[in-house]
């Protein structure tokens, strides 16, 4: 069941009805059943994967917490009889057991994810290695596994929970079914946001009264998401793909336009989907974490990544970057370099090594292809360069007496960041790494051949669609700008009822009419032919 479908809309309506008919105490159960039904629509077999994650995480977390309780009890009972060293040794033993449990949970789940997502990637490399080293042409066949929907999201979310339990940042959920809901909550299982247990659990299990306002507010959010997804993103998909595929013919400004439009497409697609998720969750009284905060208004790459896919970024920061930067081995190596090679480089090692690993992993997370790894590493390189050249940049600005608060300077930085990130996305829309570099080169050639009519006629973006998409993008950015001064929805809800309804009716009309969905109307096929 696609998120953007009538089936899903009907499903949500049905679940809402049942949800609000049930006594408040049992409403979380409705959400659990609905989430499993929703997930079963993606394939009954996929339920097995989510159950493996839920059960393994629940068991490991419970045992980890049990060890903590054991330790507390033991230390309490033997309060006076243990020496400091004995206490330390006991704590270490417990920690070791907990670490084993944590590792078991991580290995089961990440092992599952790695196997499902990267097995073909690994096979490709093994085949290549065997061919180049031993000349073996008897290739290992690819597994061609279809990834269960949302698996990386719910595994990341569950592992975040397990790590939090390990570090004692939150308490375990004792009720297995409530925990199962945390893992499977249907609005967020497709594409996030990746929620933290401490944040999401109270939202999921709280007992709320029926409030029409909540449904109305959620519905506005859903419609706004559909606007971004259907009017902008889906309308641009064919144009972007075809321009990239035909870049030998359409170079220069055509590719630049496609790169720009791809930024709009991916933002509309992803943030639109998140809007739908957040809006649907809101209808059930569940507040999900925001995942985008006007990323295209960022003034640096680092800032951009704090505003784009926020929950994934913070996940990597909290569960990979920080633990790695505190890793004894990395700290020691930094110390070694500081003492024996260079003070300045040594200081950077505990930051840059974890950062490198984070970006490598981020790249891999986006897809099991080299191009994503390269994309991730380019992000790393740009962030490092930005940091390293910061003093130079400051000096230049001082010399030139450039004021950072100046509107033109702000615009320049936003413009620069936007295009830098857009250029990096060329890896995303290219077949492979060489194609991405070729596309990048092609941008700077043959600008004079640009003819907008060719976009309309040959590149699957008809003139009317082009106008619609431009207007829709302007609306999207205007909305983002308005959002800076607080929630636009809240401002709409302060307007007279008639105006609120006019806005909602307009939104529904625009989405249903200008949305890019369905098989399209081919007037030709409706002309009567010989029967």
């Amino acid at each position, binding site marked *: 069941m696609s998120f953007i479908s*009538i089936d899903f809309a009907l499903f949500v309506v049905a679940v809402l009805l049942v949800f609000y008919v049930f006594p408040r105490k049992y409403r979380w159960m409705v959400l659990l059943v609905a989430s499993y039904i929703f997930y079963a629509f993606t394939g009954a077999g996929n339920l097995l994967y989510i159950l493996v994650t839920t059960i393994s995480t629940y068991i490991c977390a419970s045992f980890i917490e049990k060890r903590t309780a054991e330790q507390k009890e033991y230390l309490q009972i033997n309060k006076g009889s243990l020496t400091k060293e004995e206490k330390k040794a006991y704590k270490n033993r417990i920690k070791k057991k907990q670490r084993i449990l944590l590792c078991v949970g991580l290995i089961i789940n990440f092992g599952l994810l790695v196997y499902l997502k990267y097995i073909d990637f690994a096979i490709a490399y093994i085949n290549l290695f065997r061919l180049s080293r031993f000349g073996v042409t008897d290739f290992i066949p690819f597994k061609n596994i279809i990834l269960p929907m949302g698996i990386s999201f719910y595994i990341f979310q569950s592992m975040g929970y397990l790590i939090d339990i390990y570090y004692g940042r939150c308490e375990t959920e004792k009720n297995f079914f409530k925990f199962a809901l945390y893992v499977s909550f249907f609005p967020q299982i497709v594409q996030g946001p990746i929620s933290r247990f401490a944040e999401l659990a109270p939202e999921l299990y709280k007992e709320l009264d029926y409030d029409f306002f909540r449904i109305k507010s959620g519905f506005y959010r859903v419609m706004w998401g559909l606007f971004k997804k259907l009017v902008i993103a889906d309308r641009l998909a064919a144009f972007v793909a075809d321009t990239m595929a035909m870049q030998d013919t359409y170079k220069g400004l055509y590719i630049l336009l496609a790169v720009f439009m791809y930024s709009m497409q991916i933002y509309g697609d992803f943030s639109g989907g998140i809007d739908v998720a957040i809006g649907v969750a809101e209808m059930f009284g569940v507040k999900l974490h925001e995942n985008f905060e006007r990323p295209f208004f960022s003034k640096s790459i680092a800032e951009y990544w704090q505003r784009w896919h926020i929950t994934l970024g913070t996940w990597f920061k909290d569960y990979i970057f920080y633990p790695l930067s505190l890793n004894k081995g990395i700290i020691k190596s930094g110390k070694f370099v500081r003492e024996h090679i260079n003070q300045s480089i040594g200081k950077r090692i505990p930051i840059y090594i974890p950062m490198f690993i984070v970006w490598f992993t981020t790249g891999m997370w986006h897809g099991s292809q080299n191009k994503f790894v390269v994309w991730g590493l380019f992000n790393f390189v740009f962030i490092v360069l930005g940091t390293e050249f910061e003093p130079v940049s400051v000096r230049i600005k001082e010399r030139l007496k450039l004021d950072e608060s100046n509107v033109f300077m702000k615009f320049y930085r936003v413009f620069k960041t936007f295009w830098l990130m857009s250029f990096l996305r060329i890896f995303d829309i290219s077949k492979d790494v060489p194609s991405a570099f070729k596309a990048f080169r092609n941008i700077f050639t043959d600008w004079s051949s640009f003819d907008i009519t060719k976009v309309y006629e040959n590149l699957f973006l*008809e003139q*009317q*669609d082009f106008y619609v998409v431009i207007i829709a993008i302007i609306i999207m950015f205007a909305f983002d700008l308005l959002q800076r001064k607080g929630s636009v929805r809240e401002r709409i809800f302060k307007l007279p*009822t008639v105006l609120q*309804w006019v806005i909602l*009716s307009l939104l*529904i*009309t625009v989405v*249903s*009419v*200008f*949305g890019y*969905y*369905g*098989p*399209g*109307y081919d*007037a030709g*096929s*409706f*002309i*009567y032919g*010989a*029967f």
Partner: protein
Amino acid sequence: METEMKTKLKKTGIVLFKIVVIIFLVITLNRIFMPKYVYENQDGRITREYYAQSRYSEVIFVGSSTVHSAIDPLVLWQEKGISSYVRANASQPMWISYYMIEDALKCHKPKLVCLDMTFIKYADDFVEEPSTRKALDGMRLSSSKIKCIEASMGEDEKMADYLMPLFRFHSRWKELSIDDIKLAYYNKPVTLNGYLKDDGVAPVTEKELVYTKEGDLQLSPRNIEYLRKSIELCQKNGVEIFLFKTPAHSSNWSVGYDEQIGKIAGEYNVNYINFDEYNDIIGLDYSTDTPDEGSHLNSFGADKFSEYLAGYLADNYEIKDQRNERRFADNWARINAQNINR
């Protein structure tokens, strides 16, 4: 207490008003975006226009495009006072015909259902979305419509697209004209009780009609199932049913089909006639009476066939001559006037 009551009433009034506005908006959008079938593809109007005529329809003709081009209800009325309507659309398969009958029975019980067999020869998967659309978009919402959509949908089609045509036709925004808005609530008849007049002439190339003798001549189980269901539905409701094949000069037919249909008709004690065998008696001349080399009849052919059919039905079925009934006479006078003004 009174103020509380007033507030409650006011609130209810506002909610009702909102609901009405939403329904109006949705209906209007659907109507604006749906193809109008007024100036072209007029067979798309046949189903919609039936409801205004249902209470006058003592005989309904159900079938495919051969029927709506061959039977002129005005001729039947003028000849024998038979008040009829043609519920036939291009490429209309047996299952749509069945639900057309079921839908008609819910509006007004006709005296006689005449079911054309021309399309029964096609395989189960011979379904074209445009034809299904033209047949169903105008059908009133009922369980029959929903069942008919279910029976007709292709693999990639969705029920929602039929119930909310806007979802299917929204991309027409690029070609919308002022006519789409003007005609959104257009209710004037475009067809003559389902008859679509065609004055074109394209004579046949082979004068002698020879049926095919090759290929799999077995009717598909699904078509047979819906034929049986149609007969049973009529008989259950006390409505007579007559099976026929509209005359055409097409080699796509086979004596084998006639035999299979005849056998089923015999089981239910129902008449079946293949009017191809009556070409000479009817006086059809395929050098002048067809617009497409024999596949359909043109207006000249339709006049001849309708006249003959009027006589046949009057002689073989208990259908009252309604020309002296004021209600019917007034209705047909209106139809005739519209026909003249057309």
